[in-house]
């Protein structure tokens, strides 16, 4: 859990307070100036009311150059970041023709399939020539090709379930499946830090939503007991069904879900469990099959397994895996299957080829090498960062590691200084995280070599000293010099 030092909390509140005050002052002057100027939309309410986009206009725009950075090469371990300049204090940014070759610590490229791969790319181009870039049709009409049928079988085998269905976008998978499975009179209990797609899907379903404390099985049990005993709000009728939604790896914390305990609780109280493995499928586990593989949970115990292909497989799309009846029912009813264009055939081929590489079915051991490398890289990087004194979250074996920054001024400072030294990091602030807990998030890839990581550690350490984010005391330098031979300032 995150424990924020008292002094840091105070200074962070003070910084936000100051920014807020200045923002209000500027708004006040803007209102006076606008009073004079002429507005063409007479009689229409403004499309954004005053305070709704206050955060965007006054706080986010100041550090806008840290986000949305365009690149012009594939998002591999090293990539080209396009430089942008602004002539009006960050209100608009223009692309220049200059590019910087930077180390990529931000893209979701866990197994290194982002760039052109020797096994996958020729097959992808072949399928593009045969089936072309899109089918322009929904799955139920004329968008199912032999490729799609093969893909679903392949995914079902990989995940360990009898059947699977594949959609063209991971976000839409969550938003379109939850309304089909549960409706009014049902209960969804979701982890407090679940992704926005799950929240949207749960809202869209019309069921009642309750939240349990992040990754705390005892609180989940308490909530379940209370809710079953109380029944539906106001009428106290018993709930129709209860679905508990958890994620494999939480993308902003890097923590693994406590799956065995949660599964045993759900079995005891007869609730259905929905596991979203967006970040963990392909990246963790002995053979890359996700958190179930890693934590030793039988896949038959989990009712609905969902995941995306964007992170570890270098493609796009999402899947749902479950029993044959569940998948048949979903194919008959799910709006994303009935109304949306089917997944693009080259993307489908990329998924199948990358699964073959991971399982070693292409005849080489590259898959096993990649899995071993990502585990080594993650553990090495995390332990080094912790030795340096950074506050790093996340469990061992997880390739996502957030470094806490807290203070709003450190966010752009960290990001810009790292970019100057050709390391591209991702910084996240409100509203994706709570207001006080801004962080920089590192995503390790199997494509990173040991030299890449050492360089990254050097740069991060130097920038960390400059910016002042080493909240914990560093371990003595003597151990490090002996052990790894890393130079420190």
């Amino acid at each position: 859990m995150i424990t924020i030092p008292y002094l840091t909390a105070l200074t962070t509140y003070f910084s936000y307070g100051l920014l807020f005050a200045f923002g209000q002052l500027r708004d006040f002057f803007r209102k006076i100036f606008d009073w004079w100027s002429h507005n063409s939309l007479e009689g229409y309410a403004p499309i954004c009311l005053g305070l709704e986009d206050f955060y965007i206009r006054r706080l986010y725009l100041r550090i806008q150059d840290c986000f949305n950075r365009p690149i012009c090469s594939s998002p591999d371990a090293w990539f080209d970041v396009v430089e942008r300049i602004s002539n009006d204090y960050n209100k608009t940014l223009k692309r220049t023709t200059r590019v910087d070759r930077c180390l990529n610590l931000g893209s979701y490229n866990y197994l290194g399939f982002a760039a052109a791969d020797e096994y996958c790319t020729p097959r992808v181009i072949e399928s593009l020539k045969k089936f072309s870039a899109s089918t322009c049709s929904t799955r139920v009409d004329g968008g199912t090709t032999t490729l799609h049928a093969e893909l679903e079988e392949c995914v079902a085998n990989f995940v360990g379930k009898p059947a699977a269905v594949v959609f063209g976008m991971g976000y839409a998978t969550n938003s379109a499946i939850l309304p089909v499975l549960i409706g009014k009179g049902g209960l969804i209990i979701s982890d407090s830090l679940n992704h926005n797609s799950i929240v949207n899907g749960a809202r869209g379903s019309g069921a009642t939503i309750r939240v349990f404390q992040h990754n705390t099985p005892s609180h989940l049990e308490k909530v379940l007991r209370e809710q079953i005993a109380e029944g539906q709000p106001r009428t106290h009728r018993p709930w129709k069904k209860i679905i508990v939604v958890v994620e494999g790896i939480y993308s902003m914390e890097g923590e693994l879900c406590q799956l065995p305990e949660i599964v045993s609780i759900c079995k005891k109280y007869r609730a259905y469990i929905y596991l979203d493995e967006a970040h963990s499928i392909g990246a963790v586990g002995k053979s890359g099959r996700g958190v179930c593989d890693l934590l030793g949970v039988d896949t038959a115990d989990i009712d609905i397994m969902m995941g995306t292909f964007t992170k570890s497989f270098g493609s796009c799309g999402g899947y749902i895996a479950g029993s044959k009846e569940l998948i048949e029912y979903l194919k008959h009813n799910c709006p994303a299957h009935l109304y949306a264009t089917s997944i693009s055939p080259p993307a489908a081929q990329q998924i199948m080829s990358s699964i073959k590489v991971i399982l070693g079915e292409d005849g080489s051991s590259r898959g096993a090498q990649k899995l071993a490398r990502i585990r080594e890289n993650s553990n090495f990087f995390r332990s080094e960062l912790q030795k340096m004194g950074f506050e790093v979250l996340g469990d061992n074996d997880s390739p996502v590691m957030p470094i806490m920054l807290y203070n709003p001024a450190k966010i752009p400072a960290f990001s810009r200084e790292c970019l100057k030294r050709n390391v591209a990091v991702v910084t996240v602030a409100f509203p994706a995280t709570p207001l006080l807990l801004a962080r920089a998030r590192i995503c390790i890839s199997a494509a990173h070599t040991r030299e890449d990581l050492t360089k990254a550690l050097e740069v991060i350490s130097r920038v960390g000293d400059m910016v002042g984010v080493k909240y914990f005391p560093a371990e003595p330098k003597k151990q490090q010099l002996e052990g790894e031979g890393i130079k420190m300032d």
Partner: protein
Amino acid sequence: MDTMFSAFETMAKFVSDWGTLAFDTPYARAVVFGVPIRGHLLVEGLLLVVILFLLSQKSYKPPKRPLTKKEVDELCDEWVPEPLIPSITEDMKYEPPVLESAAGPHAVINGKEVVNFTSANYLGLLGHDKLQDSCIKALEKYGVGSCGPRGFYGTIDVHLDCEARIAKFLGTSDSILYSYGLSTMFSTIPAFCKKGDVIVVDEGVHWGIQNGLHLSRSTIIYFKHNDMKSLESILENATHDNKRAKKLRRYIIVEAVYQNSGQIAPLDEIIKLKEKYRFRVILDESNSFGVLGSSGRGLTEHFNVPIEKVDIVTAAMGHALATEGGFCTGSSRVIDHQRLSSSGYVFSASLPPYLASAAITAIDVLEGHPDLITKLKANIATLHKGLSDLQGLEIVSHPESPIVFLRLKRSTGSTKGDLQLLEDIADHLLKEHSIFVATSKRSTVDKCKLPAGIRLFISAAHTESDLGKACESLKRATALVLAGQ
């Protein structure tokens, strides 16, 4: 009796004496039962204390008895959930035909070549050489996926180029790309419509829009499908008694060509109504982009309405442009706002770069070959003429819409029965005549009540013989299957 009466009399007299004395005495003195007490203020003070004491007491509540652990255990043991899914019926086991080639105008199903009317590639750009070339180049340069959301190094220069190209083509100031056609609408609407806003929407819109409306939590009013009089009366009612126009945002949402019926929305009348009642218009041009208008710029060109009058235009690119994804275009204020508040843009990975470069090439081809549009229009006209006198089926779509929607002239009475008949016709067409058409299927979560039918998507790549064959086969199939109707 007498003594009691006299005692009572003396008491009454005494009390009245005391009363007059108490009122007359100016100083702090009271006489109670003949005993003068110094300080009647003391008594009043005591009275005050008693009143305060009583007020501070809680009112009577029945005692709370929370459930004991044993009772909760019992309830948990007794509770039996419904099964996760209802039991599977026969019609749920339907498997769509599997294509063995690209979904162009001629496809291969089960080894046989069929004429394909289920694929919405209106301009025949699916499999076009230029698009394939640009896709291959992009695949070799960028790989397949973009591995990140737009905010975190998922913005590739082809995305920015594509957005600029679309904006240039349509004549707006900016546009924004989404990675999935369906998510475009259900991300755009909640970004602009919040609780308390008023939205007037056609009752035949597709599920993406319905989901967006549900997520926005605004007040939603439906008007009859493509009926301008109904729209006008609803707008009149909505603005009639509402004085809070300063803070309330009001929207009209329509589709240019409705997926569920093939009708075309009369944009010129909608714009007139919009300006009269001060509403904003959100238009979904998925099936009209690249089809309507002399150069393919959509419904606005078709009706000669300047595009600035429509506030937000969205479209899915999985139709005329033969790629995947969607875009939204409008003024800069509208687009910039979506870059941070639209959930399907911020929290989802960006469009794969090869699809974005295919979109750019598709628009280039469209701009360079306006004859594709004239060919498509000619095909539509031919098919309309050929299908005008079918037995049992009638065309309910607009004569210029690229989706030809056939509905049963006489319904069997139940939607299930209708669907079964239509499925039979489609099966027969596929097996006997090698014509591949689609029936419109509906999900249980879809609220649209328009009846089902058979849909034919016409493409500029269909030849005269294809269309002739289709008309022939449809005539024969309906004569056979709907013999009793």
